[in-house]
């Protein structure tokens, strides 16, 4: 990733500087999020290595949080996997949206295959917010590099600190749901989004006493049928 090169040009071009500053600010905030993931993952029973492996190789926050939240509640790894995989499906949509810009900026198949790992909420959002291909490239590359560094640095720090404290005493078991609450608003902007959220929550509540741990969250995904109506 040529993050440093993008940052180097920043001093000359105010537009590039604007994009780089935005990327770095968001990435730093995500670092804090990574820290809370590290703490909460270890609290939910992962080792520090497992928390770090999730952040390096899965590298899509909501899925990581979801998986460890199910494991922490005593769910099976299969239901934890299924719920997390479901949340990762949106990366497929981001990939479709980003394939044109990535073909422009990354060229060869090898580089595009590397770039694909970095197609997530934040990189897609910031890149597609720019109209000029040049600024898109800066937004994608800077966000990808900085966010990966902050997310993983945060996770490592959190996993090491988290192992030293009792998560319940510090209320850290609500770190996952609090983070989910913070992730929700962008998805509630449309009427369909609010309906899906309400229906998903209702399905989950009804299913909790009936279905095995972790399964209610997967069943809640049925609520996306509200999208069938235009």
């Amino acid at each position, binding site marked *: 990733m040529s993050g440093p090169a993008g940052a180097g040009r920043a001093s000359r071009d105010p537009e590039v500087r604007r994009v780089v500053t935005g990327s770095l600010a968001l990435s730093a905030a995500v670092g804090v999020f990574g820290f809370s993931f590290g703490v909460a993952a270890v609290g939910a029973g992962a080792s520090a290595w497992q928390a770090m492996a999730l952040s390096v190789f899965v590298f899509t926050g909501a899925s990581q949080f979801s998986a460890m939240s199910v494991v922490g509640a005593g769910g099976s790894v299969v239901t934890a996997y299924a719920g997390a995989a479901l949340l990762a499906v949106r990366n497929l949509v981001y990939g479709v949206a980003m*394939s044109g810009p990535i073909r422009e900026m990354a060229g060869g198949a090898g580089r595009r295959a590397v770039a694909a790992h970095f197609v997530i909420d934040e990189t897609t959002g910031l890149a597609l917010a720019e109209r000029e291909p040049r600024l898109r490239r800066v937004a994608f590359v800077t966000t990808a590099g900085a966010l990966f560094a902050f997310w993983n640095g945060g996770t490592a720090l959190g996993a090491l600190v988290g192992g030293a404290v009792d998560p319940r005493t510090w209320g850290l078991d609500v770190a996952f749901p609090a983070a989910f609450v913070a992730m929700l608003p962008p*998805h509630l902007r449309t009427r369909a989004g609010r309906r899906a959220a309400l229906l998903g929550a209702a399905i989950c509540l009804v299913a909790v006493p009936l279905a095995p741990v972790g399964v209610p969250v997967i069943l809640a995904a049925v609520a996306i049928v509200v999208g069938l109506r235009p």
Partner: protein
Amino acid sequence: MTPLWWMIAALAVTSYALKAAGTLLLGSMRMPAPLERCVALIPAAVLSALVVKDALSDGRALVLDERAAGIAVALVLVWRRAPLVAVIVGAAAATAALRALGA
């Protein structure tokens, strides 16, 4: 490997496959509009389910405890557009404080 390591490996492969399928293979294709709308709603449905699961249950049965209060604090903070750190710290502090009082 322990089951958790297997889950991590499977999730890593799945999430990369999903990212790469969109980026490398489906680029020129367009999904049918209804399907696209439904996929876009997955986070809304699943995230809100995750929130109510943790706020109102222990994963097995419906339970109302200190976590509900902590998550209510998170809701208020998000509604007031507080930064993410404040949301997590506020929710954790409220939960911890109630537990300390109750203990």
